[in-house]
């Protein structure tokens, strides 16, 4: 089986060859450290500044509001731990949702164990947050609201601008995990009313190991990485010039083709869903049918377990995920699926296909063709799925 049908773009994406091409000169030739005073280093400083300006322009921010990090996880951790530390005199209450990425949820838990109070606002059956829930959760001692722009599992797009209006009115800092949204949805930090925003380059065809935090001017936040004075003293560590150059290029490319990609991916995603739901019984859509990322499909299948589907699809060259990629190895059902009200046994039977730039109609049709027999096979060997037995009614 040589054909590879990659449908796990929410997990990571291939680095665009055009992105690799702009990175290469900064690796072995123009390798100077931007924190130095000689031309070789200053050229690195210049290209990093250009990257900063290009990214800032894309999200309607000032270049000095862009801070480069090692990825989305670092940016999320920094925003949450940094604000909690810098504003601990004001209060120790933070607000988030039940469907955030682990990078946010685990940072919140870390704080909770150290005496902070965390309110996790619930979501509806499609994964949508009601901005009024955020308003109700606000307290005089609230120092941060952290809500994701788009969910990594079910693709639900949250009403960030509405929440931004509420936090701004209340004078509370607002962090947005835009790791899944970046490169897919328009990001305008003014329109969204956010104070902090995280991105990770490898999610939009950029390199792994680099990301950024947008940090609104005059926002107080304690550094997460202490050391050299890089990033205006707020994020230490030798500047990853090739990574930053690659990320800026990747965001530029994504921004240019955003609308086009969205239409194409949504059409393919809908074709996939129609094909699968026509060919398979007892298959259900997870998440909001409309307010979701264009390439995201998340389904559950009665009577089977996710990993076995993933393994069998892999034998057909199809790459999909049975939940959040980083929780593989854990046997916990996805917290996102539980949060939208899906029972554990169905959460275990869920599958996420996330389409991307490389996805073709042939890919989708291949999936539609090979998946039903796999489902049949797994259901045949399932003790909770049998054509005639009582247990079927249970499901």
């Amino acid at each position, binding site marked *: 089986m040589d054909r590879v049908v990659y449908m796990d773009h929410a997990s990571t994406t291939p680095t665009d060859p055009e992105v690799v091409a702009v990175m290469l000169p900064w690796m072995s030739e123009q390798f100077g450290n931007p924190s130095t005073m000689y031309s070789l280093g200053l050229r690195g400083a210049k290209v990093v500044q250009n990257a900063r300006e290009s990214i800032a322009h894309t999200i309607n921010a000032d270049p000095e509001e862009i801070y480069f990090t090692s990825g989305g996880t670092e940016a999320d951790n920094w925003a949450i731990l940094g604000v909690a530390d810098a504003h601990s005199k004001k209060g120790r209450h933070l607000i988030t949702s039940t469907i955030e990425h682990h990078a946010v949820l685990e940072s919140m838990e870390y704080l909770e164990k150290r005496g902070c109070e965390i309110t996790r606002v619930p979501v509806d059956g499609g994964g949508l947050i009601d901005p009024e829930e955020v308003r109700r959760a606000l307290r005089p001692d609230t120092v941060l609201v952290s809500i994701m722009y788009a969910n990594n599992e079910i693709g639900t797009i949250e009403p960030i601008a509405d929440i931004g209006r509420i936090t701004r009115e209340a004078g509370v800092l607002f962090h947005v995990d835009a790791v899944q949204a970046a490169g897919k949805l328009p990001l305008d930090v003014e329109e969204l009313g956010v104070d902090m925003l995280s991105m990770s380059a490898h999610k939009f065809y950029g390199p792994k190991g680099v990301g950024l935090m947008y940090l609104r001017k005059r926002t107080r936040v304690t550094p997460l990485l202490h050391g050299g004075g890089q990033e205006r003293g707020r994020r230490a560590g030798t500047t990853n010039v090739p990574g930053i150059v690659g990320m800026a290029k990747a965001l530029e490319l994504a921004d240019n083709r955003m609308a086009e990609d969205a239409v194409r991916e949504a059409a393919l995603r809908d074709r996939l869903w129609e094909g699968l739901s026509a060919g398979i019984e007892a298959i259900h859509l997870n998440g909001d049918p409309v307010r979701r990322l264009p390439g995201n499909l998340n389904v559950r299948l009665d*009577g*089977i*377990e*996710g*990993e*076995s589907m993933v*393994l069998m699809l892999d*034998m057909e060259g199809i790459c999909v995920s049975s939940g959040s990629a980083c929780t593989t*190895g*854990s*046997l916990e*059902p996805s917290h996102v699926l539980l949060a939208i009200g899906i*029972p*554990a*046994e169905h959460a*275990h039977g869920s599958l996420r296909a996330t389409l991307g730039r490389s996805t073709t109609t042939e890919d989708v049709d291949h999936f539609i063709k090979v998946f039903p027999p796999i489902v049949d096979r797994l259901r*045949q*060997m*399932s*003790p*909770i*799925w049998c054509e005639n037995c009582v247990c079927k009614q249970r499901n």
Partner: protein
Amino acid sequence: MYSELVMEHFRNPRNIGVIENADGVGEVGNPQCGDMMRITIKVKDDILEDIKFQTLGCGAAVATSSMVTEMAKGKKLDEAMDITNQAVAEALGGLPPAKMHCSNLAADGLQAAIKDYRARHKA
């Protein structure tokens, strides 16, 4: 992540199915945990003449189920009772650490089936 042998058992599981009018049935795990297995056995002269399984679960769950049926088939009941989850994992060349506990229930399922058989045939 999985060894070649685990994947081989996952791709071509042995002894899938349900024995009609089985002499014993063992069920372990539950769908909430994402892993569940049903083992049915046919016993003749204190020997496991036939054994079949159905499994809902991950690659490890399927492979260990398949492996335990292979290991047990033809064995005396007492011998089969001695098969441990650990032994099944070893026979498969090991399992990933995360899968050692939750998805490694096959021997428990077999033991449950034998106990069921013994309970039914105590008289």
